């Protein structure tokens, strides 16, 4: 029923809605006093509620950052859990203000679906997990391996492409049911299991007999950039969502954490002063308080803190930074200048 309603609403919006006025979403969010954020129904590490109904995760932190920037209070968020089919119509129809639901940024979604993607908050991709006792350190050592894989739209093909491109051979074991596939891998039927890296981490954390016995190899063989999205038509709102995410990355670049942000306010570094609003200008340009970034860092933390807390060392998933490290540490995260 909910799906039908959402789709109907989207269709109605498409049929009757006039061109959105600039600032429409921004103003309405500001007026109602909270951000309505679309998240996953429950994906551990990205967006999942705990037993008290408190949401946490890497995607959830983006919603909280936007609330902290706009209202100075990261708790002013209401979450709308969405399935994969519901997520785009929910945003298109205006049921939610922003979508942070491990959604891959693709050209067709960015254009034909009427969305705008902001900054990538997680670079995912298809990877491999192996048992530690095999002593394999890299996917390049998988020549001749047996690989367990779910039949999916591109998973099997990515796998074949990778082995063909590297002139290696492998034997696939393709099983349709998740439980049987995981069982086959953990019983040792396959040398490796291949899926999206974040999925592999979840399988390791939740399904394996002992998570420490398994290691996710560093290579990713497909591109899945996950980014928060907003509706087209309100550039001010898009800027706010984009720069809220970027502020967390910039804070990590500058070594500003939720613990030391108060001391950093008296830093002599002009870039830090601009980021934290000690030197004013950025807040005015975005139409919000000058201390917006300081509040994000204080209440949500920098990107590194959020990563380690939700999917990294501080979580069950134990995902290494990989592509999601700063560009200075071999990753892809790079914040444009805050000036």
């Amino acid at each position: 029923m909910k799906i039908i309603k959402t789709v109907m609403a989207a269709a109605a919006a498409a049929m009757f809605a006039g061109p959105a006025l600039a600032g429409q979403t921004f103003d309405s969010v500001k007026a109602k006093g909270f951000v309505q954020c679309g998240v996953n129904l429950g994906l551990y590490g990205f967006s999942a509620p705990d037993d008290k109904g408190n949401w946490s995760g890497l995607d959830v932190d983006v919603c909280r950052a936007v609330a902290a920037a706009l209202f100075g209070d990261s708790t002013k968020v209401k979450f709308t859990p969405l399935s994969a089919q519901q997520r785009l119509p929910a945003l298109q129809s205006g049921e939610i203000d922003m979508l942070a639901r491990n959604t891959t940024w693709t050209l067709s979604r960015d254009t034909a679906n009427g969305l705008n993607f902001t900054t990538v908050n997680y670079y995912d991709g298809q990877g491999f997990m192996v048992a530690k006792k095999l002593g394999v350190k890299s996917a390049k050592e998988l020549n001749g391996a047996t690989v367990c894989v779910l039949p999916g739209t591109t998973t099997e093909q990515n796998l074949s492409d990778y082995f063909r491109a590297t002139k290696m051979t492998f034997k696939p074991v393709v099983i349709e049911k998740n439980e049987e596939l995981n069982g086959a891998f953990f019983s040792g039927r396959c040398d490796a299991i291949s899926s999206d890296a974040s999925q592999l981490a979840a399988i390791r954390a939740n399904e394996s007999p002992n998570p420490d016995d398994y290691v996710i190899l560093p290579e990713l063989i497909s591109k899945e950039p996950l980014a928060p999205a907003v509706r087209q038509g309100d550039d001010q709102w898009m800027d706010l969502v984009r720069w809220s995410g970027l502020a967390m990355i910039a804070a990590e670049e500058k070594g500003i954490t939720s613990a030391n942000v108060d001391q950093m306010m008296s830093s002599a570094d002009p870039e830090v002063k601009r980021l934290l609003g000690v030197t004013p200008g950025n807040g005015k340009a975005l139409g919000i308080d000058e201390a917006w970034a300081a509040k994000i860092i204080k209440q949500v933390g920098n990107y590194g803190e959020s990563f380690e807390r939700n999917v990294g060392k501080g979580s069950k998933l134990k995902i290494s930074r990989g592509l999601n490290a700063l560009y200075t540490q071999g990753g892809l995260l790079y914040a444009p200048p805050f000036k």
Partner: protein
Amino acid sequence: MRAKRQGGMRALIYSARFRGLVYQVVVVAAVIALGWYLVNNTLANLAARGIATGLSFLGREAGFDIGEGAVAYQASDSYLRALVVGLFNTLSVSVVGIILASTLGLVIGIARLSGNWIVARLATLYVEAVRNVPLLLQLFVWYGLVTALPGPRQALQPGLGLVLSNRGLKIPLPVWHETYGPVMIALGVALAGLFFLRRWAVARQYRTGQPFPWAAVGIAGVIGLPGLVFLAVGAPLEWDLPRLAGFNFQGGGTLSPEFVALLMGLSVYTGAFIAEIVRSGILAVPPGQTEAALSLGLTRAQTLRLVILPQALRVIVPPLTSQYLNLTKNSSLAVAIGYPDLVSVANTTINQTGQAVEGVALVMGVFLVISLSLSWLMNWYNSRVALVTR
């Protein structure tokens, strides 16, 4: 003239034969119209959604790998070839499964009627346990069992070059040698000899009543003649032994865990049904037949083989055909345990090309052809064993 024509019309309307014809034409026309509408509507809707139609995707590069298969295949081959690999996998597991299930069913079916209390009860236990548990669950159990074996580096090596691990059963294969040609010819000659020996022996027994041990002589010939030729060419023998290299054993032949699990699941499950069919067939032969045969001096085994089974087969073959068809169709449960059968390969093809209608139609067509061929074969066999009315 007019009256006469009216009379003709009336005669036509009241003619049951004519009305029957009209009904049939109308029904056939309606079915064709419905079919045409469905096909046309599907095509129109697919076109409206910008979805490609037609079978041209079969020629495109598949781009995915398949775990095992009798046909050589690599990821750069076409979808058609991938589907053929899947088809041969389906056929091989079905054929071997039918042979195993029939053997098992025959043994268990006879065992249920055994005078030995323990044998009969064990057979009953097997039938009741196996045929009342869903096949899918049994497949999971078999797959769990075969993958619970130790890994390749701790593989069981029971001797004779056999290697048993959770990667399957590896068997040593003899390396082909050019002198094997004559050995194969000798084997062919011996098999042909066996065929003619049997005909001669049966004819002689009809004529004179003297039995000839054709089976023993024939088997000795089938083993002996190629054996002699093999020794004559110098007995060159080299084995391709499985050896551990990297992740797994290389060389030799392989029975994969998926194949073994599916084969065991299908054979054991269908075997229970066949056992019941065999039992009903044997019980359908009046006990007087057995008593008469025994009083003629035939042994119990001879009674079963020469008197009971030929008559029981008339009752057995028609339901047996259904079981064979079931086994073949149930092989599509392979997707659940990762055996790359036709359905599994077609699933991936549909996922990648998005041409679900064509893919499913193709699979349905292939299964229809397999089933009809099997059905035709069994009907032919049935007509041979059926009661000949004189």
